[in-house]
């Protein structure tokens, strides 16, 4: 009589069948914060190789515009708008225009595959790149604002507000740039969209709003950079309305959250074609 319990036989059968096909353990995945830090650090290092000349271009462009406008504008609120607009233009140039080009190119030639085949949260890639591009704008924006204050005789007292204006308008514009770059079907189109976004920021942000026709004022309200410009412009006054500044910065932050979410979604979509 056999004394082998039935279960033992069944288990032995199972093991024999399952052994060659057993699933391998999954490798580690990168968590959000370390992945974001790694992407940010890598992107920041690219500045040393490729971005520094472009940063000079961005700064010179803004300083040039302020010198031009000095002949047209004679102090007061218009001067505030010109200096604030030129400073935020540096952010638009780098975060919106260059990031749109970068992602457009990466998507166009298959460079995204590298990130897409790594176990990284999509948001880490998008936020890391966006944060790096926003960081690229810091020196240029500060230089532009300080030079502008010198040119138009504005006080430097409240320039510390740049510490909030740069990251928040940077988030809004970089999110927009990343979304445009990742959604554009072709890299040339991404470049075009980035350029147009920057031109819009230039025309609608630097030129004083009071002189614009009505429909352009609406367009101006739709552009996220406007709120960064307004926030900065308000602080040049003798008695800034801090509530309004906070509100403007809040709009920047909200647009930043939405546009970065859209960019993350666009990244997912672009990575798995």
């Amino acid at each position: 009589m056999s004394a082998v319990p039935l279960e033992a036989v069944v288990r032995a059968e199972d093991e024999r069948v399952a052994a060659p096909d057993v699933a391998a353990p999954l490798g580690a995945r990168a968590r959000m914060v370390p992945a974001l830090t790694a992407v940010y650090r890598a992107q920041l290092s690219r500045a040393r190789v490729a971005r520094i000349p472009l940063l000079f271009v961005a700064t010179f462009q803004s300083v040039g515009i302020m010198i031009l406008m000095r002949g047209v504008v004679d102090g007061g609120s218009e001067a505030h708008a010109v200096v604030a607009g030129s400073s935020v233009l540096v952010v638009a140039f780098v975060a919106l225009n260059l990031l749109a080009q970068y992602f457009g190119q990466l998507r166009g030639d298959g460079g995204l595959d590298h990130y897409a085949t790594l176990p990284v949260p999509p948001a880490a890639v998008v936020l890391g790149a966006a944060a790096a591009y926003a960081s690229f704008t810091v020196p240029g924006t500060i230089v532009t604002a300080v030079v502008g204050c010198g040119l138009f005789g504005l006080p430097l007292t409240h320039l510390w507000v740049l510490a909030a204006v740069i990251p928040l308008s940077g988030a809004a514009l970089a999110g927009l740039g990343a979304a445009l770059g990742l959604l554009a079907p072709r890299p040339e189109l991404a470049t075009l969209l980035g350029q147009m976004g920057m031109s819009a920021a230039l025309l609608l942000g630097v030129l004083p709003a009071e002189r614009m026709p009505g429909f352009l004022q609406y367009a101006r309200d739709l552009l996220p950079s406007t709120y960064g410009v307004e926030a900065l412009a308000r602080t040049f006054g003798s008695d800034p309305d801090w509530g309004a500044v906070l509100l403007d910065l809040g709009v920047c932050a909200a647009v930043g959250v939405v546009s970065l979410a859209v960019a993350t979604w666009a990244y997912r979509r672009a990575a798995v074609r």
Partner: protein
Amino acid sequence: MVRDLVKVYPAARGRRGRPATPEVRASDGIGIEVGRGEIFGLLGPNGAGKSTLVRQLTGLMRPDSGSVEVLGHDIVRHPERAARLLAYLGQESTALDELTVSLAVETTARLRGLDAAAARAQRDDVLDELGITALAGRPLRKLSGGQRRLACFATALVGERRLLVLDEPTTGMDPVARRAVWGAVDRRRAERGTTVLLVTHNVIEAETVLDRVAVLDHGKVIACDTPTGLKEKVAGEVRVELVWRDRAPVDVPEVAALRSSAVESGRRWTLRLAPEEARAAVAAVTGGVAFAALDDFTLATPSLEDVYLALGGRGGDGLVKA
């Protein structure tokens, strides 16, 4: 690993001035099984569907039907698992081009979930193993093609995945670099049972490094065997290459008779013949008038390239022999 895979690129509507592109069946019922620890090759001409197949294996693309199983995981249902099971070396390095070799490898290690110390340690080990420590501080785009490729290969090694999917890893590399690559692959296979899926154009490399190879054409597997096994399919044949000094002496009847079965490219004729025919052909061209016009000739046993041509793949425009 792959069963009945089908991926159809839909027909694109033509735009003004451009003809409509017809539907392309890039994967037409592909079925491949790769054993663990195997070095498996995908061989085929441009446009054969190799990259499409690889994109589906790596979770970058969803098949229209069929299943993909990687190391026991269903990749069609869980494409996000692919990144935790395999390391993929694509043909493009644009994501890394502006980074230094050291940072590119370290960042990739971090993004495979290693902590900072482990990432740095593996970076140093891998760069040392491949002999590119001296290049560590240089940006990838400043390197030569082969060096850049080697640096990208280094990024595929960190994080120790059990499956390496390598798309033409040795393009542009010198023999030293190639040896470093295959040495690193062999070590991983011996120590950890790493499986390697290799996409290649390089027939000589395929013959020497692969355990098994699948030949793809028009989205179908037209053959799948060991390199030796494949070569046996045309074992009855000998490849004869004739190089004429100036032009072929077609007025010699024997030479004229050979012409019908020769593939001509400039002064070079390539023929695949049965051994007796080959002997007769060599006798004909090495004696008499024809010999005066002959610059060089070789007789060889068939290579994988001959196999590929014999299998009815698209001749001529196909594989590039390195």
